[in-house]
C-alpha cells in the first residue's frame, strides 16, 4: 500500500520520541556547562610537563634532550637548553630546559612527544577549556604554564601515572644500587690507604669517601665540578618498592662505610646535590 513505508518510519520516530522520556539510552545529550560527562582516562588534549615535589622549577623531569622537539610532527615545541645543571630524580646532574614553549595553536594532540620521551617528563593533559582572547601569546605556553605536579598527573591518568612511578622507582633503585656498588668499591680502595685520606676528610665532606683517591687539594675542585653521580646516592634510602637488596653485600664492608663521614649528608639525595659551583 502506498504510504506504508512512511507510516513505518513515523512509528519509529514516535518510538524514539516517547522512548526519550523513559530510556536514558535515547536521551544522549547533556547540558554542557552545568552538566559534564566524565572524561575517559585515556583522554588527551595538550601536553604538560611533569614535576616532582613542590617546586615546579626544581622538580621538572625534563632534561631538555630535545627529542620531542625533533619528533613533534607539526614542530610546535621550542626548547632552549640551560647552561648549568640540576640534579634529576636519581640525583644525577642534568641540563634542564631554560625555555620550553609549546604553541598549542599548532599542537595537534598526537601524543608523539609523550611516546618518544625517555624521561617520562611530558604527558598529555585533559584540560579542554582553553579559549582565550589572545590568540598568539595566550596560546604559546611557557614552561611555567605547562608544568603540573605529579599528583595532578595521578589525578587525571591514575593507572598510567602509577605505572610511570613504578618504572621510575625501579630505575632509581637500579642507579642507586650501581652507585652503591661503585661507592663500596671506592671505599674498599680508600680503606686500603686510609692514612692519605684522613687529613682531607673534614675539608671535603660530601665527596670524601669516593673521591679519596686523588690528592687532597684537588678534591674540592673535583666536587665543585660536580661528578655527583657516584657520590650523591652513595648511601641510598632503600625504596619501599624495591627493597634493600644492597644491604647484603654491604655487610662485609660495614665497618668501612661506618668510618666514612659521608653518611649524615646523604639523607635526601635530591636535596643534597647542588652542583652549581
Amino acid at each position, binding site marked *: 500500500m*502506498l*504510504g*506504508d*513505508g*512512511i507510516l*513505518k*518510519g513515523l*512509528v*519509529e*520516530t514516535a518510538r*524514539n520520541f516517547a522512548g526519550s522520556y523513559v530510556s536514558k539510552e*535515547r536521551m*544522549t545529550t547533556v547540558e554542557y556547562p552545568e552538566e559534564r560527562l566524565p572524561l*575517559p*582516562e*585515556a*583522554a*588527551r588534549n595538550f601536553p604538560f610537563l611533569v614535576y616532582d615535589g613542590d617546586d615546579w622549577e626544581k622538580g621538572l623531569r625534563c632534561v631538555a634532550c630535545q*627529542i620531542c622537539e625533533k*619528533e*613533534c*610532527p607539526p614542530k610546535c615545541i621550542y626548547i632552549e637548553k640551560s647552561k648549568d645543571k640540576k640534579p634529576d630524580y636519581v640525583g644525577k646532574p642534568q641540563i634542564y630546559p631554560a625555555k620550553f614553549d609549546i604553541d598549542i595553536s599548532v599542537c*595537534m*594532540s*598526537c*601524543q*608523539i612527544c609523550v*611516546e*618518544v620521551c625517555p624521561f617520562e617528563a611530558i604527558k*598529555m593533559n585533559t584540560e579542554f577549556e582553553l579559549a582565550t582572547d589572545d590568540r598568539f601569546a595566550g596560546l604559546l605556553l611557557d614552561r611555567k604554564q605547562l608544568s603540573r605536579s605529579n599528583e595532578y598527573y595521578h589525578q587525571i591518568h591514575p593507572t598510567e601515572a602509577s605505572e610511570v612511578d613504578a618504572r621510575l622507582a625501579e630505575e632509581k633503585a637500579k642507579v642507586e644500587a650501581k652507585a652503591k656498588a661503585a661507592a663500596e668499591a671506592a671505599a674498599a680502595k680508600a680503606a686500603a690507604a686510609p692514612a692519605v685520606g684522613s687529613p682531607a676528610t673534614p675539608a671535603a665532606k660530601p665527596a670524601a669517601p669516593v673521591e679519596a683517591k686523588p690528592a687532597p687539594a684537588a678534591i674540592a675542585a673535583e666536587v665543585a665540578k660536580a661528578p655527583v653521580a657516584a657520590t650523591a646516592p652513595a648511601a641510598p634510602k632503600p625504596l619501599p618498592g624495591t627493597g634493600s637488596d644492597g644491604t647484603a653485600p654491604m655487610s662485609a664492608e660495614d665497618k668501612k662505610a661506618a668510618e666514612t663521614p659521608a653518611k649524615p649528608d646523604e639523607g635526601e639525595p635530591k636535596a643534597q646535590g647542588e652542583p652549581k659551583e
Partner: protein
Amino acid sequence: MSASSIKTEKLAGWNRPPVIESDGEGELLEVAMGPHHPSTHGVFRMDVVLDGERVIKLKPVFGYLHRNHEQLGERQSYLASMPYTDRLDYFCSLTNNWAYALAVEKLVGQAVPERAEYLRVILAELTRIQNHASTIGFLLQEMGASGTPLMYAFREREKILDLFESLTGSRMMCNYMRFGGCRVDASPAWIEATRKVVSGLNSFVDEFENFLMTNEILMARCQGIGVLKPDLAVNAGISGPMLRATGVNYDIRKVDHYGIYDRFKFRVPLGDHGDIYDRYMVRMLEMRESISILNQALKDVPAGPVMDPKAKIRNFRPKAGESYGRIEAPKGELGFYLISDGSPNPYRYRVRPPSLINLTVLEDMCLGSNVADVVLIFGSVDIVLGEVDR
C-alpha cells in the same frame, strides 16, 4: 585480443561525457554550487550548466582544503606522518592509520602480533559502521529528512566514538596504530564495553531500516537516479560501496585478505542498478556484515602483546625499496604508496584516496538529472573533503 581492440574497448567505457543537448528553449544558466554549500560536506564547488532544471554539464572543482599532505609526509619521519593520516578522512581515522601502517609494515617486513590484528579489525569495523551510519544520515538529511535520521545515526556514532576515546584518547584523531602493532593495549573493560555496544548495533540497524528504507518518498527520489554503469565504474577505478552498488564483486578484504580477514565469515553485499538507492542499501547491508565480523572478532580476542617488541618507534630507517599498502576503507580502496631511499623519511609518499577517485565520475552520474538530484548523487558518493584535497 589485439592491442587496438583493448584500446577501443577502453574508449567505449570512457566515452564520456554523454552529451546532453539543451532543448533549445531559453538560455543556459551557469551556477557555481559551492564552495560553501551545505550539501558539499566541506569546501567543494560544482560548476553546473543548467538548462532549466536539467544538468547538462558539471565540473567538479576541488583543492580548497589542500594541506600538502604528501609533501609533509616526504619531509617528515615515518612516524610523524601517522597523526597526519588521521586528518585525511577524519571520519575514519583508524582505517587511515591501518592503511599507512600496512604500507610501512610491508616496506620493512614487520610482523604484527595477533592481538593487535584483532584490535585493528575490531576498530576498522567499528569505523565502518559509524562512517556508513553517518553517511546515510547525511544523505537523508540532504534529501529533506532534516535532522532526525542524522541525529539517530549520530547517537549511535557517539557510542562508537566513546569507545575510540576511551581506548585511543581521542574521538576522531585517534593516531592509534603503529608500525608493528597498536599504541596501547585494550583493557578487558574496554572489550566488554565494545561487546555491549556491538550487541546494540543490530537493533540500531533494524531501526534505521524500518525508519526510511521503504519510505515511498525516499524511493522516488533515489531509485533510478544517478546511475553508474559497472564498466565505467571499473574503468574509472571506483572502489568501495560505490563499486559494489553497481554489481561488481570487489572487496579488498576478500581479495587481499590483509590483516586477518580470512578468518572471518562475511558476505559482500552487491547492488544491481548502481543508483543512489543501491548505494544506500549496500551501506546498510555492509553495516550488518560489519556487525557479524565484530561479533566473530570479539568472541576470542587473544591475549598477548599489542606491539612487536622488535618494532622501532624512533630512528626508524627502512631499507631502500617501495611498497603499496591498501585496505578496504569505508569509502573504498585506500592505499599508501611509499618509496624509501634508506633515509628516515620517505622519498615518495603517495595516497590513493578513495574519495577523490570516486568523485571523478560525478559528472557522468549527474548529467540529465535535476539540480536537486545533484546534491543527492553527490551525497551518495560519500566523500570527505579532507581526503579529496589532502
